[in-house]
């Protein structure tokens, strides 16, 4: 039976883990006489290569370096390895290599980062090669044993057959010999044509489901270590400010409290026997913050500053340009202009942020859910002050990521706390309130769009002027190009994996970068979210301004973008665009490209009293090139609508006195089952490229509904969230 093997958290594993510096699941090298080195897994089974361990009973352990946070990558990557390996899928289990092991083995597993919808698309080739290489070595070992040409042998379902004689053997029987062979040259490793896939490309069941239905799955928040204490933390609510003082005497004697400490220069933590005691004491602790100038910032002051950036006289980076849009607009017969905005959003992962750390002068170990094991490892090194060989990070299944767990602030805090209590494991868990206050927020932007028509109603020019926050400026400044954040143009770029789908004779897309003090982060879909709202709602506006059908209007601009057009057409056909909708039901549509994939979505809604929206039906189409697991792709598409529409209806984080106003799900709500219709997916994988799946669809969720709202009411909504306009679900 398939199963994901979780890191063991019992006493024995803890002792082994803390004692064996730099080692872990591959516990050592077994060097037999006369042969090359064989690396063995903890149970003694040999590695064929870093991706594949085979046990004598043919159980195949597939190593997965990327993180599983619900998106299905764990299963999808295992499918790709298994496909090339020709192993028995029913005997596949998966295992996370640790970042420490990867560092010790010269990054044998490559990139651990799991964000940007990259989990499968940027590792598919080398993991497939890992599976194919292992298969070739296993078959070679059998051929050697039989003293027959390898060309006469085939492999399927973990069984190797010598075709002329009919002799068979299994992977489990030849793995010891295979592990000693020299791997084939890279050029000799041929990958299957995806049309021949038998395991990949199929909607096989996830490998991590059963434990998620019984309570047995261990998330970071569930980690237990012997002698472990629990920490609650409060960081300065005004971003960028400092901790001034706290009055520890006021909580002296509170039950279970072991230690109160400053963490970094802005946070205070209480460590106690239980987290409930830690949190209760922290809530009672008087804290004084040194708030500084940022305490004067509000959503209103940010909005005013961003609005100034919409003015053409202000400096801006140009992200996409052809012709002379400004001149064409100035001389246009007809001009349409609109200003949109999109607010801060919090990831609000179901599992609040947490990490467990134990520190001694010889070793620092961390257990956490992370989207980037190597970044968590680096944070552990930095916060502990210990070198790589004395650090380790044990990854756990994530209770949601959405980009938030790509950051390592919570890991750093946990290590700093543990460092004050050497030898004692401490689990740091953020309260939901801390999670809401200390987000790495989806950035705030505004956008002015201007379109120009000639006398024949042809769109002659389009000017998209973005104003607002850059994520890269704060998070990854080295990625700026001469100061410009190219990611700010996601979905509007001239080419690449987030290219615009329209050809306009005169086009200008620019970004006036304005970075408020609120820390930004990558939030599922990142800048596709707002850019798709801006562009796709405005396309709707342009079409209606000249009395044209929004789909027909788009099609005329998309002839040079056949893949964008194909998903739009697929959605239009499936939802019945151009045919009458049921009585009282109205449709909206949108398309965008992001993360290398082409997506479109359409919604059917009805509106009561002008402000109560019932979403009856959603149709979505995606072309990600190849689909590894259609069942999981469907779930990612449907989930993207839930996340995107939650943000549209209920989301929006607002700043008052320099800090966030929303504190929990009562002020930052999320869609429930009653509000969500079925999502009908039309998958049109066209092959030849590998696009992402987890994020792109979120871009079309909001504009499809907003355009339907216009169709229903004649009112154009240009501001998110809808709750600010007293619009909600029916």
């Amino acid at each position, binding site marked *: 039976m398939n199963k994901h093997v979780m890191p063991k958290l019992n006493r024995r594993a803890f002792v082994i883990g803390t004692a064996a510096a730099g080692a872990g699941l591959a516990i050592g090298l077994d060097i037999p006489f006369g042969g090359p080195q064989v690396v063995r897994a903890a149970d003694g089974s040999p590695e064929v290569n870093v991706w594949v361990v085979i046990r004598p009973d043919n159980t195949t352990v597939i190593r997965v370096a990327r993180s599983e*946070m*619900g*998106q*299905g990558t764990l299963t999808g990557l295992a499918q790709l390895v298994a496909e090339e390996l020709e192993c028995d899928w029913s005997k596949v289990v998966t295992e996370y290599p640790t970042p420490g092991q990867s560092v010790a083995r010269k990054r044998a597993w490559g990139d651990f980062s799991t964000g940007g919808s990259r989990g499968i698309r940027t590792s598919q080739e080398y993991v497939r090669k890992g599976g194919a290489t292992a298969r070739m070595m296993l078959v070679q070992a059998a051929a050697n044993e039989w003293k027959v040409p390898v060309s006469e042998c085939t492999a399927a379902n973990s069984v190797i057959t010598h075709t002329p004689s009919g002799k068979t053997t299994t992977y489990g029987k030849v793995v010891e010999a295979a592990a000693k062979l020299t791997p084939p040259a890279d050029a000799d490793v041929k990958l299957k044509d995806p049309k021949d896939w038998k395991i990949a490309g199929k909607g096989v*069941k*996830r490998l*991590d*489901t*059963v*434990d*998620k*239905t*019984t*309570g*047995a*799955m*261990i*998330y970071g*928040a*569930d980690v*237990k270590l012997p002698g472990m204490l*629990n920490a609650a933390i409060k960081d300065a609510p005004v971003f960028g400010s400092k901790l001034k003082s706290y009055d520890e005497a006021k909580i002296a004697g509170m*039950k279970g409290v072991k230690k109160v400490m400053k963490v970094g220069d802005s946070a205070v933590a209480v460590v106690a026997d*239980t*987290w*409930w005691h830690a949190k209760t004491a922290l809530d009672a602790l008087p804290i004084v913050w040194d708030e500084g100038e940022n305490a004067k910032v509000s959503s209103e002051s940010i909005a005013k500053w961003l609005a100034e950036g919409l003015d053409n006289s202000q400096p801006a980076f140009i992200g996409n340009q052809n012709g002379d849009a400004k001149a064409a607009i100035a001389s246009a017969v007809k001009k349409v202009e609109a200003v949109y905005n999109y607010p801060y959003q919090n990831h*609000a*992962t*179901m*599992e*609040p942020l947490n990490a467990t750390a134990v520190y001694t002068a010889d070793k620092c170990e961390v257990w956490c859910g992370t989207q980037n094991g190597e970044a968590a490892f680096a944070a552990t090194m930095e916060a502990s002050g210990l070198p790589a060989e004395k650090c380790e990070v044990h990854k756990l*299944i*994530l*209770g*949601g*990521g*959405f980009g938030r767990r790509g950051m390592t602030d919570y890991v750093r805090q946990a290590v700093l706390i543990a460092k004050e209590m050497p030898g004692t494991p401490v689990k740091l*868990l953020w*309260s*939901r309130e801390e999670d809401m206050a200390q987000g790495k927020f989806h950035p705030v932007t505004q956008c002015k769009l201007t379109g120009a028509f000639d006398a024949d109603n042809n769109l002659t020019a389009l000017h998209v002027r973005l104003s607002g926050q850059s994520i890269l400026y704060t998070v990854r400044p080295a990625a700026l190009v001469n100061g410009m954040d190219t990611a700010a143009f996601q979905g509007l770029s001239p080419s690449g994996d987030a290219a615009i789908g329209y050809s306009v004779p005169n086009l200008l897309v620019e970004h006036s970068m304005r970075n408020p003090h609120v820390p930004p982060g990558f939030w599922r879909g990142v800048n596709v979210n707002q850019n798709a709202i801006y562009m796709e709602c405005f396309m709707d506006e342009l079409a209606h301004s000249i009395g044209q059908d929004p789909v027909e209007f788009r099609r005329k601009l998309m002839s040079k973008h056949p893949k964008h057009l194909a998903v739009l057409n697929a959605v239009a056909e499936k939802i019945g665009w151009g045919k009458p909708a049921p009585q009282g039901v109205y449709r909206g549509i949108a398309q965008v490209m992001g993360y290398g994939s082409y997506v479109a979505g359409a919604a059917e809604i009805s509106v009561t009293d002008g402000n109560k929206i019932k979403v009856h039906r959603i149709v979505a189409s995606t072309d990600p090139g190849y689909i590894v697991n259609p*069942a999981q792709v469907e*779930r990612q598409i*449907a*989930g*993207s*609508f*839930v*996340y995107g529409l*939650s943000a549209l209806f209920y989301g929006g984080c607002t700043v008052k006195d320099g800090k966030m106003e929303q504190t*929990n*799900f*009562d002020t930052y709500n*999320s*869609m*429930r*089952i*009653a509000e*969500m219709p*079925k*999502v009908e997916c039309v998958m049109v994988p066209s092959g030849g490229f590998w696009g992402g799946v987890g994020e792109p669809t979120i871009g079309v969720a909001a504009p499809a509904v907003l355009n339907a709202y216009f169709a229903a009411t004649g009112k154009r909504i240009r501001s998110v969230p809808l709750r600010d306009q007293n619009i909600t679900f029916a």
Partner: protein
Amino acid sequence: MANLTINGKSINVDVEDDTPLLWAIRENVGLTGTKYGCGIAQCGACTVHIDGVAMRSCGITVSEAVGKQITTIEGLASGGTLHKVQQAWVANDVPQCGYCQAGMIMAVAALLKEKPKPTDQDIDEAITNICRCGTFQQVRAAIHSAASA
């Protein structure tokens, strides 16, 4: 010290009377299948059964739970056999990240006890748990399949 009955077992927990049941279950009893999501009875991740009724354990104190039959996700299966809701969850591959699913399953198990064949409207009214991954489509399908199992 309070005496709780959890999954049929009598357990003494050394906590203050006003400790939320959620934290007694997680930290003092050590059953971590019941999750913390919000602490204010909004999200439903901590749903357990109290005398057969689905309740959010973060909003109940230990003293209020004394004398009641408390069932957590770990106590839903009987012997080695998964509850029909758990079976339907496995068959429909419902969980994504899975963090909210224990609470979701507990809410659904209570619903099916009250309404063995729930309509979509019954589901809409009774199941109000938050799932940030948004696996609602699979939840609905699995409820119907559990109901017909």
